[in-house]
């Protein structure tokens, strides 16, 4: 009887809409496939989300700005609300940027939202990349997605720089002047390249409109496409998860998309947007009205690019004098070329790293359980070296501010930076790798001997012992579960020849895996639990001569 009533009941709006969509686009199948898809939970997985959401905020705030901004370098006499610049001759681009700030309600807020979210987008992308690097999330099958993410990082910098130049203020104009100088420094084609970019002599009348086209159409379209590919591959691979009980390379443990992740990730978008809004409402960014319109003659001391361009500016500053020479009928501006090569070379190494490591390990398995950074000491050391290298270049862009704020000699700051650029990464590599190995030893110690309780007991024969509390089965798993690799020897191939490739690989594999800590085995664990805990030997580090593979 009740069934009959239920059948007669008219379906509600939601059910009707669902039916409509299913019969037209097969929404039911899509939902069945993806609705309960499992996502693992970890705070570090939110870094990529922050980048994604700040991009959405960029699109929203950027669209608002396009309604008011005019990308023209024609000159006008300013007659807006900002008193100090009244009557000043300036480009329409700069005047319209001032109008957005001083004559449009909420305009300054939107400009600041746009600028802050741009800074956050690049920062979050960078941190997300570091997370992926240090946890080994780039390993098979995600190498291609690493490249896609890398492209997004580079495009983020491009979007940032093209946008930074649009207000045509004194600071951004100086940034363009530096780009002009760098392009002119390229052998053979430099002067032509600059003329093509600027439509004649610097600054010309075209560059703002050209950058505007790139900034609001080409670059964001590319970013959108790459984001789509990036997320599509995340769905295909399913998200990685950290080591933990029940987590393996053939499963994914976490919460279902509907309802938990829809609520968490959806809510997180609003939180990211809200935080950007809060910062923009309360902190000024890029006060272009203080700089004045672009003029090639004045410049203020302590000029700084936006943070993500700093490392390239630092590279320019750290180049020593007198690197320019004349040969083969032209001027070689090595003081500009070398920093450019260093910058591009660094990016190429970043992009290529997953392939380098895969070549060393020859590991063809799929990896879905993330490494704790300590469990891949060499990779973590390399990462620390890379971070140090970047950080020194970045600090290099602030040599003048360091010198004036700390009242030290500018020359000494610069020389120290030059030395640090070479020495810093090496030291960082060694310290980090050793720290990782020490942490692994500590993990081993804790698994075998338990956690220190701080309780001291006195045995009948007078000996004092600290009681160690063994870890639970679930708790210790995280400390045991990691991949172990052995260095290889250069072996002859099927023709009986030892190739150069094999030799190099053997040498590199020794650098990677010569010093390593072996995961605790069940036998060791049993011995430690059933015998006297204090009788267990300290962990053994592998010696090179023991290679038996």
């Amino acid at each position, binding site marked *: 009887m009740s069934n009959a009533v239920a059948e007669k009941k008219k379906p509600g709006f939601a059910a009707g809409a669902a039916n409509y969509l299913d019969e037209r686009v097969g929404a039911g199948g899509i939902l069945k496939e993806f609705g309960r898809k499992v996502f693992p939970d970890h705070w570090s997985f939110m870094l990529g989300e922050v980048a994604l959401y700040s991009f959405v905020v960029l699109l929203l705030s950027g669209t608002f700005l396009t309604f008011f901004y005019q990308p023209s370098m024609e000159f006008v006499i300013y007659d807006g609300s900002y008193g100090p610049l009244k009557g000043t001759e300036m480009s329409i681009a700069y005047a319209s940027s001032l109008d957005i700030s001083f004559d449009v309600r909420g305009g300054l807020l939107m400009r600041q939202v746009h600028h802050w979210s741009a800074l956050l987008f690049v920062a979050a992308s960078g941190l997300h990349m570091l997370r992926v690097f240090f946890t080994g999330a780039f390993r098979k099958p995600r190498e291609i997605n690493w490249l896609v993410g890398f492209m997004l990082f580079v495009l983020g910098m491009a979007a940032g720089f093209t946008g930074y130049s649009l207000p045509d203020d004194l600071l951004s104009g100086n940034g363009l002047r530096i780009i002009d100088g760098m392009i002119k420094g390229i052998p053979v084609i430099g002067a032509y390249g600059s003329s093509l970019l600027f439509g004649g002599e610097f600054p010309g009348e075209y560059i703002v409109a050209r950058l505007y086209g790139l900034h609001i159409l080409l670059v964001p379209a590319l970013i959108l496409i790459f984001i789509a590919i990036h997320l599509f591959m995340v769905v295909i691979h399913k998200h990685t998860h950290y080591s933990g009980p029940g987590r393996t390379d053939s499963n994914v443990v976490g919460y279902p998309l509907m309802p938990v992740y829809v609520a968490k990730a959806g809510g997180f978008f*609003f939180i990211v947007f809200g935080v950007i809004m809060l910062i923009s409402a309360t902190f000024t960014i890029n006060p272009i009205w203080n700089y004045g319109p672009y003029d090639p003659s*004045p410049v203020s001391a302590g000029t700084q690019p936006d943070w993500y361009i700093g490392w390239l500016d630092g590279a320019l500053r750290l180049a020593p004098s007198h690197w320019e020479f004349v040969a083969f009928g032209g001027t070689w501006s090595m003081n500009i070329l070398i920093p450019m090569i260093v910058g591009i070379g660094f990016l190429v190494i970043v992009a290529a790293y997953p392939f380098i490591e895969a070549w060393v390990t020859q590991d063809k398995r799929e990896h879905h359980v993330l490494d704790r950074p300590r469990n891949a000491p060499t990779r973590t050391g390399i990462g620390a070296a890379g971070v140090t290298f970047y950080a020194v270049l970045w600090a290099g862009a602030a040599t003048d501010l360091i010198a004036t704020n700390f009242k030290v000699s500018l020359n000494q700051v610069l020389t120290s930076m030059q030395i640090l650029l070479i020495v810093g990464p090496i030291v960082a590599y060694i310290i980090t790798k050793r720290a990782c190995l020490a942490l692994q030893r500590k993990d081993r110690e804790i698994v075998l001997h338990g956690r220190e309780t701080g309780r001291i007991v006195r045995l009948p024969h007078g000996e004092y012992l600290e009681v160690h509390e063994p870890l639970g089965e679930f708790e210790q798993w995280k400390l045991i579960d990691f991949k172990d690799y052995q260095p290889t020897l250069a072996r002859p191939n099927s023709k009986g020849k030892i190739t150069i490739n094999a030799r190099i690989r053997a040498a590199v594999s020794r650098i990677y895996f010569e010093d390593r800590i072996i995961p605790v085995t*069940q036998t060791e664990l049993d011995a430690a639990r059933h015998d006297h805990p204090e009788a267990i030997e300290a962990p053994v580090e592998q010696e090179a001569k023991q290679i038996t593979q």
Partner: protein
Amino acid sequence: MSDKKLVKASSAEVEHEYSGGLAVVAPDAVKNPGLEPHRLRMTDKSVKHEKAAARQVSYMFFASVVGSVFAMWAYFAFPITEDLATVRANTLYLGLGLTLGLMGIGIGAVHWAKTLMPDAEVSEDRHPARGSEEVRAKAVEIIKLANSESGFSRRKLIRRSMYGALAFFPLPAVILFGDLGPNPGDTLRHTMWKKGTRLALDPTGVPIKAADITLGSVFHVIPEGLAELKKHKLEEKAKAAVLLIRLNPADLIESEERKTWSYDGIVAYSKICTHVGCPVALYEQLTHNLLCPCHQSTFDVTDACKVVFGPAARPLPQLPITVDAEGYLIAQSDFTEPVGPSFWER
């Protein structure tokens, strides 16, 4: 604990075994203990907590409504006038309202998920990216079929001519960008300075008399007539900007040929850095050094503006100057070398 106990690691899938390369694993490796038993939250255990959490979530959503309404009110309540403080008030209150509108939704939704939605972790199987042998065989079959039907491998002439066509078709697109800018020609070698051009103050364009320049002072200079230019003012200024400094003639180290380029200790140098073109605007009177604020290239004014520090390689070009009959400073000629950043043909 010797390596002999370790065996090569690999992953055995149903259909395909992947090599672990250099990976090794102990035969007595510890087994994964499986998922940890789920622990209940307070909101799972107590109705009181559950109801409290539900209330908190709805408060957040209400707060969001309040924030959004406040933002709309603030748009009208804090208009912008010529008083700069109104810009700050408009930005602040509009922004704070929007913040509350956004954060209320965000925090509410996350709180809902964390306290009221199930928090027991679930496990889902992964499948290797690689297709099954059957699927792969089918894919190969399709490619072979497409190949035989089109004759792609067989018809060499078609294939190669197509490669040729594909290689050539983007080239016109590259050429199409040719008119982005003119051939630079010798524009980079010349500036507005000519024989007899008066040195004028930047930005007013008032000519400067040699007598007006006191010892140790610095003037930012443009050629007379630049301020009145209707076209290409910035382009000309980007090349012609000059710094004028009066030194004690005894401090000057001048080569024979440049002895006549200064006037009574007054020297004029290009203001455009020879590194990447920033204006070299900072003068240190004590050391007679000019410092570029962009990349800290430092030039010694007493010694032909040679580079004493920083990434620049060449001295700042000197503008030969003298005075005219009325006592105004004038240029003897244009710069004798290109100003600004280095380029190939310079």
